[in-house]
């Protein structure tokens, strides 16, 4: 069963999966991190509470997060086509993955920043720090372990969603599993792709844990 052709296909599948997952995670953070900071800053206990901004951004995040991914995938087909030029394949899948991830990331970031000790923020204020200095030199620095953990969890989630997009021609390992396992009854190839997904997942989790542990100076 593992002919040269199949191995080549699986290798390409792993590459496509990593491509979709990591690119959508990075773009997701480019959008989600500022949103998360905004949520934290405008929140009730934030540096500059603002109920209107918090309410709008928060509701927007909640609405998108409450739409099941597969439905989001289908709803976004026109948008994807407009951006990428086609609605199938790895690159096209990145669009719904980013839309799904950004509000999720915003909430994860918000909660990581919330865990920063209020006393440390107060001390920085007492030293004359501006809000921007507090965000970039206190909040993001003190919360970095938790932020990396959030990144790891988000990436794992995106890995799963990228596989799910295979059911509608999204490319990557999920696509292979669906085409061979479901349509052609080649269970062996399906099992290999699932194992590969598990391995990729474990590697991401391992690296994430390692990096966040390395960055953490709170314990001896």
């Amino acid at each position, binding site marked *: 069963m593992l002919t040269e052709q199949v191995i080549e296909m699986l290798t390409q599948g792993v590459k496509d999966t990593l491509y979709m997952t990591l690119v959508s995670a990075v773009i997701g953070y480019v959008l989600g991190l500022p949103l998360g900071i905004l949520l934290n800053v405008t929140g009730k206990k934030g540096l500059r509470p603002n109920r209107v901004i918090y309410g709008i951004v928060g509701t927007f995040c909640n609405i998108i997060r409450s739409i099941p991914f597969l439905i989001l995938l289908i709803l976004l087909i026109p948008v994807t086509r407009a951006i990428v030029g086609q609605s199938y394949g790895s690159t096209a899948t990145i669009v719904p993955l980013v839309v799904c991830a950004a509000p999720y990331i915003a909430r994860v970031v918000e909660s990581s920043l919330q865990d920063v000790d209020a006393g*440390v923020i*107060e*001390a920085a204020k*007492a030293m*004359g720090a501006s809000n921007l200095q507090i965000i970039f030199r*206190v909040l993001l620095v003190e919360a970095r372990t938790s932020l990396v953990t959030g990144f790891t969890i988000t990436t794992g989630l995106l890995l799963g969603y990228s596989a799910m997009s295979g059911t509608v021609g999204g490319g990557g390992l999920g696509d292979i599993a669906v085409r061979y396992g479901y349509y052609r009854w080649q269970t062996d190839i399906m099992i290999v792709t699932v194992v590969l997904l598990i391995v990729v997942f474990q590697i991401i989790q391992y690296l994430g844990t390692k990096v966040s542990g390395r960055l953490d100076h*709170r314990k001896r």
Partner: protein
Amino acid sequence: MSEIEIKNLTKRFQVKGHTVTALEHINLNIEKGEIFGIIGMSGAGKSTLVRSINYLEKPTEGQVLIDGVDLSDLSTKELRKKRSEIGMIFQGFHLLEQKNVLDNVCFPLRISGVGRKEAKDKARALLKTVNLEEKEKAYPSQLSGGQKQRVAIARALATEPKILLCDEATSALDPQTTESILALLKQINENLGITIVIITHQMSVVTDICQKVAIIDNGNLVEQGSVKEIFAHPTSDAAKELIFGTRPSPLSVREVSGNKTVRVVFGGGSSYEPVIANAILRFQVPINILHADTRNVGGKAVGEMVLGLPEGEKIQEDITAFLRERGLTVTEVDEHVN
């Protein structure tokens, strides 16, 4: 002009629709170079008061003037500049957990625009002052409470403030460490001439290093003056409670004996004459010593005693007068104490 002037300060908080008055009409002047204590029970409003001095808390009414400048007249930027000239330390230390000791001390310098190299040199000198130069690479989690507070003190001094605010800075520390931190604060006050405001609920902290004290009770300033004065003649209930509350209650003893209890304070001269012994000889009655202690108040040894006087109003009055004639301060220990 006092260095810190608090004028008619009132602070109210809105909590779920109703109003909490944390401070009411506080008037307070703190002079340059003083070590000023602000003492009160938990919830009295001490933290709110000290946080008003650098406008972390904006007064609802009244003013705070630093060197004659009303903080409410300052722009956000000017206020931040002003805050960098006022150091602050806390009960919980509030160090940056992900930065090492050296970077913690550099932090206030870096945010005020000082270059990396210059900040490090200055931070190292400060760590020397607080006796932690060998810990510069350590992270806060690797330090003891006393060491963390030393780092916090070095950090607070980095921007060369004229005022240092201490909010319960020793309340999380054991007695020995408290003593060493207080000694360090005193040394800083003497060497650098920095005005220090100390918030505490422990009378011993005030008697150890403060020259002046204000007593806050339930949002009101009930008494202020020199530590010596107030320690000898506490007039407010809150002051009595804080002073008497620092040692075991004489009440249980009084319940047994059923007698009147008085507190006697004496400093200097009188300790050469055996006053209590003479009183016993003169009146031919037993006088119970329920408690005796010597403290260092503002650099002077001050004795404190709690005496159980024998029954009979006349004899009690006579003994009290006898003690007063010999320069002792005599106050009745109130029922409500403890």
